[in-house]
């Protein structure tokens, strides 16, 4: 209900608001996800909500694998995060997770350690964007 209300406000107000609402499509391509979900906006909200709830757990698992120097498992976990990110429509997260997957498969622990702050930070950006921009039509 509140989402629909905010969506209505954003749609009907000026371009100033719409720029606030806009999210960089490489961080979150709302239109692509909406298209994939057959224009079902309620489902879109539910999917984003599920992603926001699940992803911190998945990143925590990845952190644990890296801290235990389990690079192969970290690669597999990177693959999983890549799939989720691709499906949600975040190419930034997808590319980072892909890099994690590759580093894990090549047993490159340094690279994995180097990638993790970027992954954390990009997910924070995604979360922040969802607090504002995802509620609006792009």
């Amino acid at each position, binding site marked *: 209900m509140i989402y629909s209300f905010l969506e209505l406000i954003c749609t009907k107000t000026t371009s100033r608001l719409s720029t606030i609402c806009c999210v960089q499509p490489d961080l979150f391509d709302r239109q692509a996800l909406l*298209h*994939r*979900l*057959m224009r*079902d906006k309620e*489902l879109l909200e*539910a*999917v984003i909500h*599920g*992603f926001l709830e*699940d*992803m911190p757990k*998945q990143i925590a698992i990845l952190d644990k694998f890296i801290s235990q120097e389990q690079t192969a498992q970290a690669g*597999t976990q990177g*693959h*999983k995060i*890549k*799939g*989720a990110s*691709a*499906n*949600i429509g975040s190419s930034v997260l997808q590319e980072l997770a892909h890099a994690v997957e590759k580093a894990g498969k090549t047993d490159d622990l340094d690279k994995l350690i180097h990638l993790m702050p970027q992954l954390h930070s990009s997910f924070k950006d995604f979360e922040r964007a969802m607090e504002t921009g995802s509620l609006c039509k792009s």
Partner: protein
Amino acid sequence: MQILIAEDDLTSRTILAAILQKLGFDPIEVGDGGAAWAAMQQPLPPGLAILDWEMPGMSGIEVCRKIREQNSANPPYIIILTARQAKADIVNGLEAGANDYITKPYDNDELRARVQVGRRMVDLQAELIAAKDALAHEAMYDSLTGALNRRVILETLDKELKRAKRGKTSVSIGLFDIDHFKKVNDVYGHQAGDEVLCKFVRTIQSNLRNYDYVGRYGGEEFLVVAPDSTGTPNESLYERLRIQIARISTVVRGVRINITASVGVAGSNGSTTVETLVAAADAALYRAKDEGRNRVVYK
């Protein structure tokens, strides 16, 4: 139609399930290969399955291979979901027994088209199985009465004789002939005759033990095979059947038709063959007819 989605990533699984639901499927979601395998072992498993290649524990490919090893008469249609696009991987997936594959990221239209192909194949398979079952039934049973046909009842007798020989037990048979059946057809018509035959068989079937058999030997002659008799022909069984048959009453166009049957019974010993046993029962049946019908004669 139920469709299994085995995908360890929650977001991907939620999206896939939602899309498939919109396409009219009834998705069942699981998060790993072990759960997928368990879901496919249910008494009525989904006809369609989308298995992610990479899952914790058992991979989609391993689940697929295990399902194919079961060599089921009604195998599911399996689509492997994979980010791998190399030709060797795809070949590997298909060789594991997958019917199709979808590469990630998938396009909705492609997904829809591929699951529709799967649905068509599952429907077609169900039709083929039903046709095969119907043919198998037709090949074994008399289409009018539902009794075993002549070939099958004689094969059954042969098997039971061999079993009895091994187990040093015996088999008895009763050759039943409906008395004056031609008159039923001539006076009341063939439809009435058919109805009488069906009722006759139902009466016999409902009075047999689970391991006895009845088959149509020809026209209005029926053969009962009763294995594991106690060494002598099971007299009470055939006499009981004769009495039950005499109680059959078929009403056709307001006219009550009653029938009786003559029965020739013979029992096996160690050297009995199908031919000698049936010939003995036939001779006993001839005597039953000769002695006035509606009776059981033992050879």
